[in-house]
């Protein structure tokens, strides 16, 4: 990057000039879901026939499914007929007229994260004509990626321009029958990212959703597909530290990763959906299916995530370790404060010989928040020599929050080595007093302890993301003590 990557302003101002703004001149569809709606979405997006068939199959299957209830989260029942499954950008009359009408707490957060003024309005969903300077940097990127043969474009564009890749890989990791929310997403997904890295190519830059931050309202049912062909490498960054508000309360994204022989995908997420106010009102429900398939030998998929947002999170980025010597990693920091609920973790499915996986999960709970780690390590009979190491730590701040751990292990090969370590600790009054006696304020002391706790995960993040994640954590936990 030619500009200072720490400069959030320059990052968020960037616009992916020739992509990401989906040009649709259609009004929102009425609330409700039936085959007609699915057909309408497909038609609006001018999709080829195969895509419509795929959506319809998913929709018909979804009708036979039940919403899962096993997660350790509580929320009022969602009426799926009340939701509009395709909305053009909100009409101005529905939106806040100015920043004066927005939750002042949210504005304060923007201030602390250093979000530039003109960005704040857009993030908060205020009706403004967001005119961003077109940045030539983005064009340069596009050319550089083209030269390398990398495809990085909106999903809807890929459906039209690269149907052969879509047909081959879409749903090959997360089939539409996988789970209730994945089926729903498959039927009605709006847009998302598509990445293809050809054989032997090391993607010349980190691919970031920052580039398409101006693509409004694709978030609700996002669909992402990343394919790393043989011997290739890509690092993908998703999300943004700025708290994103969205009128759509339900978010059900699907992310599929495919790593062929000797390929590596590093997927980093910093997610900060609006968690709602202190009573949890207005927060996003984030029900995500993320899965990577280490399809070839010696392939590697690494998930790193820092989650501070959403009212409810239901998310288990997973790896299917199909190839011999394939490697799966999951590094996670999840923060829940106030009334937030999170049920999150990972699944590592060992199929290939000598496949190995590492899970490092750091959960931080404050306020009245409830957080659960749910992890599955499954070693199939053929996975000779498989190894897993799981470390699952919880940090509690205050006395009203909770941390729960649900580890599942199914080992069907006697040569496998599976280790699980778990700790729960609380930031003690004594630790805080000790720091304060050394002249460090209580808030700084909490930040210091929390950042120390998360160190192992932060070091897995790309540098500029790590710096932002740290700042984000400090803001998220503000006022958690005392």
């Amino acid at each position: 990057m030619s500009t200072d990557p720490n400069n959030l302003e320059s990052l968020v101002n960037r616009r992916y000039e020739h992509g990401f703004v989906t040009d649709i001149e259609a009004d929102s569809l009425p609330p409700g879901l039936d085959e007609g709606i699915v057909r309408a979405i497909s038609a609006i997006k001018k999709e080829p026939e195969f895509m419509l068939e795929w959506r319809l199959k998913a929709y018909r299957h979804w009708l036979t499914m039940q919403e899962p209830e096993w997660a350790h989260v509580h929320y009022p029942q969602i009426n799926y007929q009340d939701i509009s499954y395709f909305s053009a950008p909100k009409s101005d009359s529905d939106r806040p007229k100015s920043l004066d009408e927005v939750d002042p707490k949210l504005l304060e957060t923007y201030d602390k994260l250093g979000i530039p003024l003109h960005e704040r309005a857009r993030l908060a969903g205020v009706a403004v004509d967001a005119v961003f300077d077109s940045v030539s940097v983005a064009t340069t990127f596009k050319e550089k990626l083209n030269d390398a043969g990398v495809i990085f474009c909106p999903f809807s564009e890929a459906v039209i321009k690269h149907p052969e890749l879509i047909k081959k890989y879409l749903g090959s990791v997360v089939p539409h029958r996988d789970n209730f929310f994945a089926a729903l997403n498959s039927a009605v997904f709006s847009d998302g990212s598509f990445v293809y890295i050809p054989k032997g190519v090391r993607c010349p830059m980190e691919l970031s959703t920052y580039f398409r931050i101006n693509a409004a309202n694709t978030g609700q049912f996002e669909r992402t597909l990343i394919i790393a062909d043989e011997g290739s490498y890509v690092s993908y960054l998703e999300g943004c530290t700025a708290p994103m508000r969205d009128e759509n309360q339900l978010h059900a994204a699907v992310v599929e990763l495919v790593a062929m022989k000797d390929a590596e995908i590093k997927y980093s997420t910093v997610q900060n959906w609006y968690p709602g106010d202190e009573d949890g009102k207005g927060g996003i429900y984030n029900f995500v299916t993320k899965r990577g398939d280490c399809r070839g030998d010696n392939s590697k998929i690494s998930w790193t995530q820092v989650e501070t947002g959403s009212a409810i999170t239901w998310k288990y980025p997973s790896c299917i370790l199909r190839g011999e010597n394939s490697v799966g990693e999951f590094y996670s920091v999840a923060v829940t404060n106030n009334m937030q609920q999170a049920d999150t973790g990972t699944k590592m499915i060992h199929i290939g010989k000598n496949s190995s996986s590492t899970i490092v999960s750091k959960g931080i709970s404050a306020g009245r928040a409830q957080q659960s780690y749910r992890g599955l390590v499954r070693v199939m009979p053929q996975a000779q020599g498989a190894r897993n190491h799981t470390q699952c730590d919880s940090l509690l701040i205050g006395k009203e929050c909770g941390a729960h751990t649900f580890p599942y292990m199914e080992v069907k090969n006697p040569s496998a080595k599976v280790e699980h370590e778990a700790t729960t600790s609380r930031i003690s009054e004594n630790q805080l007093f000790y720091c304060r006696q050394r002249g460090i304020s209580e808030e700084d002391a909490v930040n210091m302890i929390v950042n120390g706790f998360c160190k192992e995960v932060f070091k897995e993040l790309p540098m500029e993301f790590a710096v932002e994640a740290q700042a984000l954590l400090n803001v998220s936990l503000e006022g958690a003590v005392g």
Partner: protein
Amino acid sequence: MLEVKNLKASIGGKEILTGLNLSVKAGEVHAIMGPNGSGKSTLAQVIAGHADYEVTSGAVEFLGKDLLDLDPEERAREGIFLGFQYPVEIPGVNNAYLLKAAVNAKRKHHGMDEIDAFEFLKLAREKMTMLGMDPVFLNRGVNEGFSGGEKKRNEILQMAMLEPSLAILDETDSGLDIDALKAVANGVNSLRDPERAIVLVTHYQRLLDYIEPDYVHVLSGGQIIRSGDKSLALELEDRGYEWVVEAASA
């Protein structure tokens, strides 16, 4: 420097300090001795501002300021240092990081620039050599997995870096072998200064063989019942506390 007047303090509704008076001037070393449960540690915690203790009456003045008005961190930045009897472990937080944050919090409070990273390391290494500490301790978690002796040395290292006006060392000698005790005592002695006061809270005379106090006080039942010079400590070592307590209540 420190004026404690008729101080009464309680914890969980139980009165521990029952009207304590103490006056400490710059350059002095005071030892506070007394039987278990007499209120020694309570005094140290109350001066440092621990929230569990409630001050019910009396006054504490430090360098002309009303100390009881200040938060613990403000007291620290004003120059009060408490060497803890049981230094707490903070896993994951780098020892050097805490130390630097503490030094900078104080510097900032006094309108100074933050310490330069190289200068900080140089200074820390220097002090560690003096205390016989391996520099690797800088890169470990705060007190994480430290032995009792290492924790106490770490307290003195912090004191040396923070250069307080008033240092209260709570049972700094407890749990130390003779080599560690000497190292800690050397560290404290090197910090004796006409501008600095030191209050040693201790059970035993042993520490006072190495750090010679100007005054010795006996604390019992939440009050200072006798004060003297270092010979009082020797007498206590010989005869125990009972005679002082009896004499006071007579």
